[in-house]
């Protein structure tokens, strides 16, 4: 990896200042960024570590939502988000134990890998992504593979996940990487059901509107009978064709409803 300057600010304000520099890049737990830099696919001049900012650490529950600090590792969410079991389970299923001790919620959402788990939780929960300047609804946040509404130098300080009546996340793992080949997050709220799919689409995480409508009328696996997502626009690679992934979306959604 190319060399860089490393800074570890103690406050959000200091981090924002450091990120205003030329070719500065925020660093969460580094579980994606450091491998990317090793491959020389990224070469920032300055890395601004966010893990030393106390205000961005920890999990709390308020106003019917689980609030996760942007720099909170997955293992801490898994252990402390008991008020939202599906979210805790999702965090506890990312990567492996050592990766979960470093990787962060904000880092995952800022990167928006099309096969990552957190985007499904955020979109499926209708979460609010809180940054140093504003609050962004999950529906407005994800803009395609590795693309988000974040501006240059904007930092995710907190993510607020409204707690649904019922929810479940089902991940069909790509066995080598443990990323989702297809992952489906289903959440039933008083005013309707949200279904978010990760791993499948070339556009990244998306909501499956037909399934949401069917499940809002009848929250049962049978309500999904006959519903399919088109294979067009699904990721095709050596791990699975687009048609395979499209089929898995239906299967995993049924499993998530059954398990919720």
């Amino acid at each position: 990896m190319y060399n860089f300057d490393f800074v570890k600010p103690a406050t959000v304000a200091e981090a924002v200042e450091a990120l205003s520099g030329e070719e500065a890049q925020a660093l969460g737990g580094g579980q994606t960024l450091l491998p990317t830099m090793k491959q020389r696919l990224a070469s920032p001049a300055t890395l601004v570590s966010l893990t030393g900012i106390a205000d961005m650490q920890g999990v709390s529950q308020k106003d019917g939502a689980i609030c996760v600090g942007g720099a909170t590792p997955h293992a801490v969410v898994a252990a402390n988000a008991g008020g939202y079991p599906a979210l805790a389970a999702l965090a506890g299923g990312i990567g492996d134990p050592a990766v979960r001790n470093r990787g962060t919620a904000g880092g995952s959402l800022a990167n928006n890998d099309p096969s990552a788990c957190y985007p499904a939780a955020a979109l499926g929960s209708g979460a609010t992504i809180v940054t140093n300047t504003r609050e962004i609804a999950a529906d407005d946040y994800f803009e395609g593979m590795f693309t988000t509404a974040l501006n240059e130098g904007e930092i995710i300080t907190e993510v607020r996940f409204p707690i649904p009546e019922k929810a479940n996340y089902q991940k069909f793992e790509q066995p080598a990487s443990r990323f989702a080949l297809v992952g489906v997050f289903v959440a039933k709220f008083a005013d309707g059901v949200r279904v978010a799919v990760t791993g499948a689409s070339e556009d990244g995480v998306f909501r499956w509107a037909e399934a949401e409508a069917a499940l809002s009328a009848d929250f049962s696996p049978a309500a999904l009978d006959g519903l399919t997502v088109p294979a067009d626009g699904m990721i095709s690679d050596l791990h699975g064709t687009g048609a395979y992934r499209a089929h898995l979306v239906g299967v995993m959604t049924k499993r998530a409803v059954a398990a919720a």
Partner: protein
Amino acid sequence: MTKVEMTVNGKSVSGDVEGRTLLVQFLRDGLGLTGTHVGCDTSQCGACVVHVNGVAVKSCTMLALEADGADVSTIEGQAAPDGTLNVIQQAFQDHHGLQCGFCTPGMVMSAAALLKDNPKPTEAEIRHYLEGNICRCTGYHNIVKAIMAASGQDVGAVAAE
């Protein structure tokens, strides 16, 4: 170069590192603690697992400067000063939990992290926890047996499936 300071196996250490210096490079090249191995260098294999502030991390995917001020434990700190193996290391020896030994430092450190949080794990829990540690020799059964034994449990029922 930037000065980094941390505690490694109970001793205060320091050194000059670049921004890009990985924790595993600092441990191996800076401190001569070559028990921590670099297998894949892509955070897949787990041969580089050490503990940072009490939790297991892959030291090939953490910068040395991220560990500034941290309390780090490596495989070298596991045995007693007179060389007596700790209970996990001894169990690996007793149950033939290694063949070539390359993955063993990471396996032992992951096992220690597991047993700290879960003193009596089931066989399934052990296998699940070791998802991030790859062994190409043993087929894992004897590693699982060793960890069961280290937790004081009967290993007779561990499947040789």
